[in-house]
């Protein structure tokens, strides 16, 4: 006897994700990952000035703001032969690093924590016990005071007493698998609020250079923000000092608050290192923030962390890091509402076509899976050499580990020893969440120890050049040029691909982390990573279908970003034939 379960909306993610499940008793037997939004941005970019493209494609996502813009300008620069000065690249690297840290912190506290933390329970906690608990788990965060914990408890209590539960309305608070004691829940809620304040503060690193956040401004050929130590209207020592402070704040929060919290909370849910395994295949072009224009093996761009090379790990075999070959990427439309012109099952990104052809039921609908044509999502299914791949913090951490990155190894080994797990157990719900925390530490440290100091040292040497004007004018471009770029962003491996003809965008394509992860079945029926993590072994728990807490934990461990996942390109440049308003 199987029961159908629908989770829609799947909340605390970016965008719109629907999960359909079949359960067998208390475990999940089948799963379908269904993306329910489509916007068509790459179609819209066609025919426009390639120097404008970043502003359009940046709007693919406001959570991972900046990253699509940077991938876009890299790809355009790669195509037209523009060579941004080192300081401009370092500025982009700093923006990427601050974005990556902010994104991971927001994910852990504001999107993922309520899967593990029971908020109402915090109202019953003894505030002093919360202070003591924080100390016990090694949290040295400055917010761990009796006054603070008392105030937060009173706030939670006030909300509960009012009977209006605001964002906590309908939470699964009586679910039997919330395991933290009240004082731990109180500490976590306090840190949830602290993290809100933290992210507001540290995101200003990007604002100095891009003028706003979300959606800061970028520039093909460099950066628009000028730097000059002797001018009040340029970025000078005033901003350098501010950034130094914000970076110090960042490393403090990550070390004193985020990492201890993540380690402690996962330690209470150790069985989640056995739950949620997806395909043990991993792809990354380096550590978080790694950036390449064109093929990584031949890129002009230096990337901030050169120690870890691009690579592919297959079947969980960390002893062999395969060379990464971009030409082995193909996207399947077997389960997605698109058609390929000649009926191909898969196309490479540089040849990709996305012609939306919705064949599902007219909304409102109650069930999508099992349609005659097998289609149930707006998300294509990328494969590498035929394999479904995991991208993101776990893939990068394993790649760094496999290549002997010392700090990553130290953090991973420390956690593995603490939990008594072997490395392969990182392929799990808890493992992905742990990898994100580990990566947040290394990203913050590299920003503080490497990228920012290099930028300042260059400034000291008088290097204030931030713009390559030689390729600004379209008259300096070839009549036809193609370029692409890979960037390791918060959720994983991102690539943008562009072809420019007669000064206009002719083709545009993005292959996005969440597409790799949230895509559905390919032509062989093999599942995508979300689906595999839920239904791969038939053992994923789901105690009460009305309270799907367990699958939420697993899906959130991937940090879904659905707007990113759904991109479209019609390479023929034809309009899509959909009625407009």
């Amino acid at each position, binding site marked *: 006897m199987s029961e159908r379960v*629908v*989770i*829609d*909306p799947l*909340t*605390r993610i*970016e965008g*719109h994700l629907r999960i359909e499940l079949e359960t067998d008793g208390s475990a999940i037997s089948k799963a379908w990952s269904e993306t329910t*939004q489509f*916007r068509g941005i790459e179609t*819209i970019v066609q025919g426009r*000035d390639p120097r*404008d493209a970043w*502003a359009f494609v940046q709007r693919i*996502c*406001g959570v991972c*703001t900046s990253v699509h813009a940077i991938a876009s300008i890299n790809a355009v620069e790669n195509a037209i032969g523009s060579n941004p000065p080192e300081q401009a690249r370092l500025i982009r690297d700093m923006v990427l690093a601050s974005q990556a840290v902010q994104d991971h912190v*927001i994910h852990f506290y*504001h999107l993922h924590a309520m899967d593990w933390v029971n*908020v109402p329970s915090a109202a019953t906690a003894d505030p002093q016990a919360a202070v003591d608990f924080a100390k016990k788990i090694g949290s040295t965060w400055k917010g761990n005071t009796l006054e603070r914990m008392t105030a937060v408890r009173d*706030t939670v209590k006030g909300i509960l007493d*009012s009977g*209006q*539960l*605001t*964002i*906590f*309305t*309908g*939470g699964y608070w009586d679910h039997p698998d919330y395991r933290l004691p009240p004082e731990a829940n109180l500490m976590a809620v306090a840190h949830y*609020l602290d993290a*809100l304040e933290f*992210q*507001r503060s540290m995101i200003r690193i990007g604002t*100095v250079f*891009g*003028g*706003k956040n*979300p*959606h800061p*401004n970028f520039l093909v*050929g*460099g950066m*628009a*923000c*000028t730097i000059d130590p002797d*001018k*009040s209207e*340029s970025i000078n020592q005033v901003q350098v000092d501010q950034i130094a402070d914000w970076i110090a704040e960042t490393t403090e929060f990550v070390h004193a608050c985020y990492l201890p919290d993540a380690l402690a909370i996962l330690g209470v849910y150790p069985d989640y290192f056995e739950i949620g395994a997806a395909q043990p295949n991993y792809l990354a072009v380096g550590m978080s923030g790694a950036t390449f224009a064109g093929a990584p093996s031949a890129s002009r761009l230096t990337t901030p962390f050169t120690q870890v090379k691009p690579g592919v790990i297959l079947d969980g075999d960390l002893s062999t890091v395969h060379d990464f070959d971009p030409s082995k990427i193909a996207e399947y439309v077997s389960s997605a509402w698109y058609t390929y012109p000649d009926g191909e099952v898969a196309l490479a990104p540089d040849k990709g076509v996305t012609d*939306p052809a*919705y064949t*599902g039921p007219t*909304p*409102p609908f*109650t069930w999508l899976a099992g349609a005659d044509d097998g289609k149930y999502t*707006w998300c294509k299914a990328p494969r590498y050499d035929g394999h479904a791949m995991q991208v993101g913090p776990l893939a990068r951490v394993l790649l760094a580990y496999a290549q002997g990155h010392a700090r990553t190894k130290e953090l991973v080994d420390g956690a593995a020893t603490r939990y008594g797990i072997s490395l392969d157990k990182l392929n799990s719900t808890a493992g992905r969440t742990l990898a994100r925390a580990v990566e947040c530490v290394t990203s913050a440290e590299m920003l503080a120890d490497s990228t920012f100091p290099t930028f300042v040292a260059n400034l000291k040497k008088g290097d204030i050049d931030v713009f390559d004007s030689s390729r600004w004018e379209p008259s300096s471009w070839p009549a036809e040029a193609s370029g692409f770029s890979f960037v390791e962003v918060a959720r994983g491996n991102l690539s943008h691909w562009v072809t420019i003809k007669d000064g206009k965008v002719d083709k545009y394509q993005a292959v996005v982390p969440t597409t790799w992860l949230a895509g559905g079945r390919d032509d062989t029926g093999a599942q995508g990573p979300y689906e595999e993590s839920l239904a791969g072994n038939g053992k994923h728990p789901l105690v009460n279908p009305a309270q*799907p807490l367990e699958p939420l934990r697993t899906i959130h461990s991937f940090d879904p970003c659905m707007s990113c996942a759904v991109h479209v390109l019609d390479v023929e440049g034809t309009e899509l034939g*959909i009625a*407009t*308003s």
Partner: protein
Amino acid sequence: MSYEPNGWQEPTLGENLARAGIKRRDFLKFCGGLAAVFALGNQATGTAHAAPVTAEQIADKLSALTKPNVVWLQLQECTGCMESTLRSGGTTVEEIVLNLLSVNYNELVMAASGDAANKALDDTNAEPHILVVNGSIPLGAGGAYCTIGGKSAEQVLRESAEKATAILAVGACAVWGSVQASKPNPTGAVGVDEIITDRPVINVSGCPPIGEVITATVAYVLTHGDLPKTDAEGRPLFAYDQRIHDSCPRRAHFDAGQFVRTFDDEGARNGWCLYEMGCKGPSTFSACPVIQWNLHTSWPIGAGHPCIGCTEKQFFDRFTPFYQTLPDVTGFGIEATAQEVGWGLVGATVAAVGVHAGVTAARRASATRTKVDPPLRAFGDSTVWLPTPTSRRPAHVDDAPAPKTTDEPGKAE
């Protein structure tokens, strides 16, 4: 600097007010204007034909009442508007979701998913509530381009709007459709006020809007018990009554004819005017220079990039190519350049712009521009690009200020 939660600590508003030392008399006064927004039941939804209620009755009801319930939808969008809300340093998001309001439905931050989330939405929709909308509504493919809980974005919006006492469209997508509504608008995306046509929709434009502007719009409604005054586009005057060009700290360089000619040139390092680099500040209504971004850290022009005009209608079509200067519009390129590019472009009377030495230089600069791409023509000669003087007049053209005004738009707090 640290945020100290100071929550709704008593069960009812009356008790909370008493706790905060608010006098009944002051509360009664406040109640006079409150009925339109707070959830008072059917008889006091603020419509003209509603049965009259006294401030005393309102006060009694309100005293027993709780926080306004809120549905905060995210339709076809990128979540940038919620991220901007998270970054607000005025009224913070934690004050909004924990203290000021009961945000019973918002997909980004709410605990519940699936059926429990849909129940929270249905329950809140069933009673009067405040509705905030991020994202556009795609009308193509029978609504299949954006579905939530199996329903189309249009259906979700209509159900949530039915009993809403105030509707705020937040962000360029909710206001006009933004990037996905740009040509060729593959999904048929439209803004909220093209679906909800029987009531006022407050349009908080921007891609995204400044976080402080988003939260201040909500706080404005709570503070004043009424919707904010708006311009003809439905944008709150407190944040959209002036063009960037009017409050731009670089305005003096425009007037003096000091322009950045190439990114990273000497002028750029000196903070000169970005008009020649394509700045859309002269045609963009926003308080960016005043409020700035991310705790007053910087703002786009302050960080050296031209304004791309993201608070304006269909800026992805009308303001592109972004790095091309504003086109020749009536009057531009003649002696009155500064004024015409100033208030003249939106048809207002400029009160007191002197004739600057820079005008000649500006004209000379404009004369050196070789050609203007066709898309830019659109907003030079189009009747829809910016409102005509008469269409904008009711809002704020009547008292079009001199370019330099001392009145700051209302701050977030």
